[in-house]
């Protein structure tokens, strides 16, 4: 597994973070750079246990498969109708009959299984997927997830998100902590239409790792990005964070 220091130079100060900064209507100061998308994916990948069935959503979650710790073998599940798969196919070598849920071409590996959409979602809804990582527009303090409908557009793609939200045994959200205008995406109550109620278990962002406590117990900050403390994270968050007595810097190994 790659260490945080190894990726800092490329990811934390990467192009995208700078791009975001240009468009922010800044009214809160970032005390330190934010983590890059790959680092968020690395931190999420630490949650996967050997032998688990994992479904990775589009966006940051897709990157997680590059950072699975050594000694951990996962069974990847995709809504496109497959169990187990290799990494993305090399450019120009895509097979239209082997795609993930984002329409990207995959490479085969030994031990795959193909099935249809009814079966793919029977697996999800039936609780056979151990963990899913999803992007989000908003997450509430009770673990409500909003990730499919932007009211401004007036039409949205639900895809398999609602099924994953209720079906996966564990839902991890991987996202930027704030919108482009610094609007908090972690909120006391979602203003966007929900994908699922009380379904999120862990939130990994570009500045923090936050647990959603069961039965409406609220949010608990357990890890912070380098240079960020509980107060600065709270000031970028739209819901009250309890702070773990074991609060620590994000660790990737």
């Amino acid at each position: 597994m790659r260490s945080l220091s190894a990726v800092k130079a490329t990811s934390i100060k990467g192009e995208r973070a700078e791009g975001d900064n240009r468009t922010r209507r800044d009214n809160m100061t970032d005390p330190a750079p934010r983590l890059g998308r790959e680092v968020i994916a690395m931190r999420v990948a630490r949650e996967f246990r050997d032998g688990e069935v994992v479904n990775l959503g589009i966006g940051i979650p897709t990157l997680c498969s590059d950072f699975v710790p050594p000694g951990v073998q996962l069974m990847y599940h995709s809504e496109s109708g497959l169990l187990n798969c290799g990494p993305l196919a090399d450019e120009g070598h895509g097979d239209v009959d082997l795609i993930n849920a984002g329409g990207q071409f995959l490479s085969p590996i030994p031990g795959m299984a193909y099935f249809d959409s009814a079966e793919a979602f029977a697996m999800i809804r039936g609780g056979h997927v151990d963990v899913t990582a999803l992007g989000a527009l908003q997450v509430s303090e009770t673990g409500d997830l909003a990730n499919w409908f932007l009211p401004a557009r007036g039409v949205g793609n639900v895809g398999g998100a609602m099924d994953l939200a209720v079906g996966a045994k564990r839902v991890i959200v991987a996202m930027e902590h704030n919108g482009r205008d610094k609007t908090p995406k972690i909120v006391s109550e979602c203003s966007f239409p929900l994908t699922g109620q009380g379904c999120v278990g862990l939130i990994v962002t570009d500045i923090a790792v936050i647990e959603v406590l069961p039965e409406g117990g609220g949010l608990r900050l357990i890890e912070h990005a380098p240079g960020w403390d509980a107060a600065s994270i709270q000031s970028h968050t739209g819901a009250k964070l309890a702070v773990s007595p074991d609060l620590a810097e994000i660790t990737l190994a």
Partner: protein
Amino acid sequence: MPIDKTVNNFAEAVSDISDGSVVMIGGFGGAGGMPHLLMLALRDQGSRNLTIVGNTAGIAAPTGFGWPEGVEPIDHAVLIENGQVTKVIASFPVSGSVSRPNAFETGFRAGEIELEVVPQGTLAERMRAAGAGIAAFYTPTAAGTMLAEGKESRMFGGREYVLEEALHADFALIRARTADTLGNLIYKGTSRTFNPPMAAAARVTIAEVDEIVEPGGIDPERVDTPGIYIQRIVVRPPVLEGGLELP
């Protein structure tokens, strides 16, 4: 007579799809598993006021979703742009990119096309229910969301479930790799997706295939969609008129 469900050509295969039909269109959204030539034939046939049902409402044309570089995608837009569609039932109706709307989104914004968004798993399960004679089922998906508004819900084991009804169609246009003349089908890779549940959910299912073999040409253990669900099969030429090669 020996059963043979082969029809001669694509025009004949879709000739009786009448105005107002509910038509399922197979595949996931990319090039694989989509009945390209049946869609083009339905465009040429011209029936109107159609409800089309599928995972997407055609997202490949603007985004290239699941299509190889350098090939012009064919998707649901061929029917929508021809003014044949008045309602869409889909889980992923619009392009992932706001700035590249698909034909459906343009028609939807113009008020010409009605939309029913259904979670992908619920969509597949409603089709399966239709094919399996199940009138309705309780699913946890969408409980407490706007997609459950107006629907009955009920608690089982302390959890909320939404009542969803079977989704039937008049016709299903599906895509498979190989058929035998009895209509037994096999698919290739992730191009299976919605094709099997649609095959069972429609009154008439028409399969566009790459090849048709005699009975015995498909391993009976390997059949993905048994011929009981298939009414017509039609084979696509490897190269289309004008030399176009479809993926």
